[in-house]
């Protein structure tokens, strides 16, 4: 089932890339998508980690928030960079996570890194914690508020 | 099939290389290499005969017009080079079997022949193509496979030699392709013939002058013109003997062909020689090569290195023939290409046989080897005489033309430099011959026995050829004459 879903997604990916809808290319795309998805059974990417399609609907709600967050952080870091005094106070902080699945955990870690001002330096899955390098006290504070953690966990859903 | 000979000239060795890579068995790989090496000269000779009979042979790859596609084009000049390169391959093939088996570990023999045939493909391709960029591709095919061949040498220094050659060879090839790119930008074509037609309109512009410089320096690196020769001695000294023979006999020669093609065909004699100081500059470097490299050769203790430096010096004579840019001088240069290929090929083959039998490289360790391997070392004497340029060998014919060309120009001092340089050759050849023949045998020499027939035959074939062509060089001279007049040299 997941293989078929992956094949479908890949086929859409193909069509978006291609822009040419000749029979030859469309059929080739379909065949390529199916073969690639099937190959995933051997290479191990056609599972719930490699193709977490069920997260897509709630992901569509999370991502815009992330983009906004990243943009705001970028602005504040840009201000720091352009400040003649370079007002930074770098620190390493350990944060706890509440995600259940690996995909959610990684999404949180990557979201932290994507937002300027914080970088996930170490992902310690067994303990469910992340070590984060923060550029400023404010950036660290933003993490401690735990909003991003909550939103990612929400994206994971109940299933 | 006859009209497809130009394509087959390159395809046959290419397919041979691929087959070698697929079969992976040493004996089968050698057999493939040998068969290919015996087919390619047949094709080359047929092509040359066609050229001499009915004129230039042109072949359009894919049927495309030369303005947009790749053209293979054979005239007297590259016809001669094709025959030389493929002929040397044919002679090397029987030699290679025992030599490669002795010097290269069994698991890599097929790889050796794959690279060997790829190198052959590249060299034949450079010679036959009428497309400047295609020539670059073939140049790199031959170069990359040469690096791989050198790295197969048994000493660890072979690796370093291959690396150094790779660095310098890549710089040279890149210079070349930059030059080609500049011409391409200015003329809109990569076809050598079309370039020649169109370059007149832009010939004194900065990019074209830069292109001339880039191409000349780039190819000079490849042909090891002093002082751009530093890669050559180690490469020749540490490569497996068969690879050394092949490279020494063919690789630098093809590079010189390319230089001639660009200087006289593309840029044109009228421009390069009349308007620019190419002759004096190239003459200075050639003479420097002849003297400096030969002098260094005198002081080498390793026989292969000695003859490697000798190659750098001998290349100087060829480039001198190019530099003087007259019909006579080019004849001298082209005949020297042939003569040096035969003599140096024979010498390196003989050294390969000696290495196989005695495991010695140093001249001091090879004392008295003439007594144990008289037939091999007699051939060394003959080839050495040709290298010196003793009358009756082909080496004399080329030097004769060079000296005459110098006098024709009124450069009597150059004539004296040319002949004086032969004396240095006498010294290092004499040193080797004296050690081999007139000294008490060393331990290594005592353990040696005469080379096998499969090696003696090719060695003597080359030695006899140097004498035969020294007594009757009308064929190469005639071809060279035709080539010179086609290039517009008088």
């Amino acid at each position, binding site marked *: 089932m997941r293989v078929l879903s992956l094949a479908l997604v890949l086929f859409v990916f193909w069509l978006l890339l291609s822009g040419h809808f000749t029979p030859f290319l469309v059929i080739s795309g379909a065949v390529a998508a199916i073969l690639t998805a099937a190959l995933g059974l051997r290479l191990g990417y056609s599972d719930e980690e490699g193709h977490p399609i069920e997260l897509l609907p709630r992901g569509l709600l999370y991502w815009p928030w992330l983009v906004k967050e990243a943009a705001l952080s970028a602005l504040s870091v840009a201000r720091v960079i352009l400040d003649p005094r370079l007002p930074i106070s770098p620190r390493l902080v350990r944060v706890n996570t509440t995600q259940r699945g690996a995909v959610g955990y990684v999404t949180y870690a990557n979201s932290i890194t994507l937002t300027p001002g914080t970088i996930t330096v170490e992902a310690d899955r067994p303990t469910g914690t992340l070590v984060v390098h923060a550029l400023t006290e404010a950036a660290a504070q933003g993490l401690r508020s735990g909003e991003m953690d909550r939103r990612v966990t929400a994206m994971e859903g109940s299933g | 099939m006859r009209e497809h000979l130009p394509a087959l000239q390159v395809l046959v060795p290419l397919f041979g290389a691929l087959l070698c890579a697929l079969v992976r068995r040493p004996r089968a790989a050698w057999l493939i290499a040998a068969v290919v090496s015996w087919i390619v000269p047949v094709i080359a000779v047929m092509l040359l005969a066609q050229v001499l009979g009915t004129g230039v042979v042109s072949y359009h790859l894919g049927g495309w017009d030369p303005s947009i596609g790749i053209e293979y084009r054979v005239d007297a000049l590259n016809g001669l080079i094709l025959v030389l390169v493929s002929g040397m391959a044919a002679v090397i093939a029987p030699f290679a079997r025992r030599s490669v088996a002795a010097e290269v570990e069994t698991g890599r023999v097929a790889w050796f022949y794959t690279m060997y045939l790829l190198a052959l493909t590249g060299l034949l391709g450079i010679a036959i193509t009428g497309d400047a960029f295609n020539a670059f591709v073939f140049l790199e095919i031959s170069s990359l496979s040469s690096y791989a061949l050198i790295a197969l040498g048994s000493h660890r220094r072979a690796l370093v030699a291959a690396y150094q050659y790779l660095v310098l060879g890549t710089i040279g090839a890149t210079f070349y392709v930059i030059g080609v790119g500049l011409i391409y930008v200015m003329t809109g074509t990569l076809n050598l013939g079309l370039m020649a037609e169109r370059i007149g309109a832009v010939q004194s512009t900065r990019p074209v002058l830069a292109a001339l410089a880039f191409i000349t320096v780039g190819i000079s690196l490849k042909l090891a013109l002093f002082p751009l020769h530093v890669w050559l001695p180690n490469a020749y000294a540490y490569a497996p003997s068969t690879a050394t023979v092949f490279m020494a006999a063919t690789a630098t020669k093809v590079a010189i062909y390319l230089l001639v093609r660009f200087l006289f065909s593309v840029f044109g004699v009228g421009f390069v020689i009349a308007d620019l100081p190419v002759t004096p500059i190239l003459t200075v470097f050639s003479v420097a090569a002849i003297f400096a490299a030969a002098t260094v050769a005198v002081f080498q203790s390793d026989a292969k290195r000695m003859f490697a430096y000798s190659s750098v010096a001998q290349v100087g004579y060829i480039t001198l023939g190019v530099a003087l840019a007259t019909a006579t001088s080019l004849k001298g240069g082209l005949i020297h290409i042939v003569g040096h290929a035969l003599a140096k090929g024979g010498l390196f083959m003989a050294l390969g046989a000696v290495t196989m039998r005695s495991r010695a490289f140093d001249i001091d360790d090879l004392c008295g080897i003439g007594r144990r391997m008289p037939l091999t070392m007699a051939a060394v004497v003959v080839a050495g*005489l040709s290298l*010196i*340029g*003793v*009358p*009756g060998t082909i080496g004399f*014919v080329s*030097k*004769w033309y060079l*000296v*005459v060309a*110098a*006098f*024709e120009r009124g450069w*009597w001092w150059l*004539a*004296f430099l040319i*002949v*004086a340089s*032969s*004396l240095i050759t*006498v*010294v290092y050849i*004499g040193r080797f011959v*004296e050690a081999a023949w*007139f000294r008490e045998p060393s331990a290594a020499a005592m353990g040696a026995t005469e080379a096998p027939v499969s090696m003696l035959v090719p060695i003597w074939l080359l030695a006899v050829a140097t004498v035969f062509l*020294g*007594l*009757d*060089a*009308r064929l190469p*001279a005639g071809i060279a004459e035709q080539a010179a007049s086609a290039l517009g040299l008088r």
Partner: protein
Amino acid sequence: MTGETLIALALVIPAATALLTPLFARHPNLRESVTLLGTVLLFAALLALLSKVLGGARPALHVLDVVPGLAVAFAVEPLGMLFATVASGLWIVTSLYSIGYMRANHEVRQTGYYVAFAAAIVATVGIALAGNLFTLFLFYEMLTLVTYPLVIHHRTPEAKAAGRLYLMMLLGASTVLLLPAIAWTAVAAGTLDFRPGGILAEKLSPTALAMLLALFAFGIAKAALVPLHFWLPAAMVAPTPVSALLHAVAVVKAGVFFVVKVIVYVFGVETLSTSGAGDWLVFAAAGSILIASMVAMTRDNLKARLAYSTVSQLGYVVLGAALATHWGIVGSGMQIATHALGKITLFFCAGAIYTVHHKTEVSELAGLGRVMPVTFAAFLVGALSIIGLPPGGGLWSKWYLVLGALDGGQIAIVAVLMISSLLNVAYLLPIPLRAFFGTAEGEATNGRAAEAPLPLLLAMSATSLACVILFFFPGIVFNPLQSMATQ
């Protein structure tokens, strides 16, 4: 047989001898028979050719064109014919002598010795009969290379050092000076063929002609013109028969023959005399004659003294040719023949003395004449011929050289020739005289067999006899030369 066939035979016979000799390496008698057969056949062929030439024929043989303009071709003319015949005749004698000498001295590498010797004769014949400069140059270089193993025959350090000097001086001069000279000639004249009257008439300025002549005269180092003579004394380390035939006859005569040939057939006597381009060479040769003679006097080693004598005598040949007069050329040619006979006799004697008594120094020879009367008698005849005194044929060559000098108005040269003859007397005559009349210091005879082995005696007798014959019948040499010089 046609002239062409004879020319071919003259080259093929010694070549075949060289190739067949190694086949009999294990059978010395057979091997030497092959050599002797070769010498006799060659002489016969050359005599046949000589008779044609004396009959006015000028046989020629075009072998091949290396490239257009560079031909291997032969053309017989009197001077070359004479040189070839003398060399070949002396090869017979020397071979006979060699057999005795090599066996008596238990020399090693005898097979190689005979092979190289025959090869040297191929080269000499090729030089003598060459029809153009390229062919001459070809065989000239070949001669250098095949005689190199003979020079280093003993493989001792000094032999190898001498060999190196030999090779480097001869090859050096021929490549650095001679080859450019030939190339220059080709460019200026458009041909390399030898032609009566020369090929350079009105092609070069007098200065250029003089320079070209210098290139030839010094480039042909085998002519041993001072200061390019050092290789010759050094080469004396070779076994004596080698010194005898090669370094008294074949090699050095090839050198002066080359010079004469170039002057007569490349420059042209006429061109040379009207341009005055040869004047300097006359004086250079004269200098060479005097210097070498004086050095010869200082040498105690017999072979070294003979070598310097040779250097001096070669100067006569060059001088005669450089005079560029009719009699000068004739004298020059005669000097080639008479000196060959005289000097080979002296070397034969030197070899005999070494073989029997192991004496090499002049000072050791006092009193020895009484134990080796035949040897020293031959020595005396040879010496007289070289000095130019009766009953030696050398008288005639000196005579015509003086005539030539007078013709050219070179009175100073006449004086030089006179002084030189006195010097010759001073360094040559004391040797036989002290041998006959002096008293030995210590044991002269060494308690051994007195006179030389028979082959040696036969050889030296033959050559000294020839010296005498030339005194009484100079026409043998004179007539062909006269016909050449009047062309």
